[in-house]
């Protein structure tokens, strides 16, 4: 194995992934497991968690939890032995035109995409810092952001607000945690063929809008994003912090 590929080796690392039951979270769990990581999967859906457990067989712990449930998530994180990597992925979207955004939608998105993301990041960081030799072995936090963390899009005001927020959190955390050698980055995908986006893309007009805006002319795959997250989590990215990997087929380059 080349030195380069050795750098992308997560043997002995514990990776906590929220929103691990579907889409990007699930693909990332599979990818990181493949390169040796032990996975701590957090998700709301029990049967999807057990199917993930069945797929990975070894080095996998599953916890059924809604990340908005602070008591529950903090108890889970407290009881885990060690965390080296956090994939802060749980998030959602309720697209609505700005003028019609319901108060309940706004509150829900801020609750999940911002407050829960912040709390999970904080709890996991506390756990990561418990390790005496953290500074030596390093740590990595990856936020699942979006290209809508960098530009706006129709019916995406609340989503953009929440993801721009995550971009800010990424930079602030990176600066504060650098002294502990914990790196903090985000990934900013375009539309990905996840169960959620597939629903949007089923609308012909929407699909046309998306593809017309992606110079590469295709939507991203879950694996495109999982690969970038795994890269950021590994020593191959040991000088990369406070930034993002934009996986948008050129959407934001325009």
């Amino acid at each position, binding site marked *: 194995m080349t030195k380069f590929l050795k*750098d992308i080796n997560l043997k002995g690392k514990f990776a906590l992934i929220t929103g691990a039951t579907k889409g990007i979270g699930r693909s990332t769990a599979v990818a990181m497991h493949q390169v040796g990581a032990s996975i701590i999967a957090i998700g709301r859906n029990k049967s999807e968690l057990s199917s993930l457990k069945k797929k990975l067989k070894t080095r996998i712990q599953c916890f059924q939890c809604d990340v908005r449930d602070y008591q529950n998530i903090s108890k889970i994180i407290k009881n885990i032995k060690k965390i080296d990597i956090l994939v802060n992925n749980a998030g959602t979207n309720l697209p609505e035109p700005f003028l019609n955004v319901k108060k309940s939608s706004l509150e829900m998105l801020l609750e999940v995409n911002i407050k829960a993301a912040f709390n999970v990041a904080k709890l996991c960081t506390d756990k990561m810092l418990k390790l005496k030799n953290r500074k030596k072995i390093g740590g990595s936090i990856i936020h699942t952001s979006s290209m809508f963390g960098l530009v706006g899009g129709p019916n995406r005001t609340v989503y953009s607000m929440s993801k721009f927020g995550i971009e800010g959190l990424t*930079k602030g955390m990176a600066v504060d945690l650098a*002294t502990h050698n914990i790196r903090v980055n985000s990934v900013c995908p375009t539309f990905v063929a996840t169960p959620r986006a597939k629903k949007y893309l089923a609308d012909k007009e929407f699909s046309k809008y998306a593809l017309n805006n992606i110079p*590469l002319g295709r939507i991203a*795959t879950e694996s*495109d994003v999982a690969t970038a997250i795994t890269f950021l989590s590994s020593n191959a990215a*040991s*000088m990369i912090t406070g930034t993002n990997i934009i996986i948008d087929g*050129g959407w934001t*380059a325009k």
Partner: protein
Amino acid sequence: MFKKINLKNKTALVTGAGKGLGKACAIALAEAGAKVIIVSRTLSDLTKVEKIIKKTKGSCLKFECDVTDLNKFKSILNKIKKLDILVNNAGNNRPEHFTKVKKKNMEYLVELNMKAAFNVAQLCSRKMVELKNRKKIGGSIINMSSQLGRVGAPIRSVYNMTKFGLEGLTRGMALELSKSNIRVNSVCPTFVETPMVKAFFKNKKFKKEVLENIPLGRVAQENDVSTAVAFLAANSSNSITGTSLMVDGGWTAK
């Protein structure tokens, strides 16, 4: 998944491959299986790089050429069968206070960092689109930019100008080449322990100032950058185009 960082059957051209980042990139790409065309002004440097690559059973072809010599560079491209990856790396820096920048230094840096970079990119792109099934197999161009392509710094006005320019070129190229499935990105390293930077670091005060500006508290190693380049060169970054990968230890997150 990390089979995706496999460059077997790919041909990669690296400019400025005699030392520093170019040398490290050439070695990394060869390690990942690519046939590497190394270009530099200094034949003795190329011979050393060739030796390292051949030692690990890598494939390598060397050409002595100053990239500002457009005709000579063209003749290299005429000698190679196909091209899949370009690491547009050759560049230089002559730090001077803005009010004291010598005309000849400004012209030299614009000539090399911008004009030659543009010409090399254009000639290589033309070569890449020649391949009938390019759209199917894809291609990747990585421009060697800098964190100073994103933020300013003392006595770097000309360097800033050239690297900001390269960031613009990256985005423009990405949009136009996406039809051919050629992805174009840049990497933006902080100060890297290259021969060029080591010379700057003889100034203790400068070194201290640099380290104070990198939250991770260390300068980058050549390997940190070559890994990022290999990631962008391979299918691992299939949906990534028109963007830049910051390898700056948090410098621009502040």
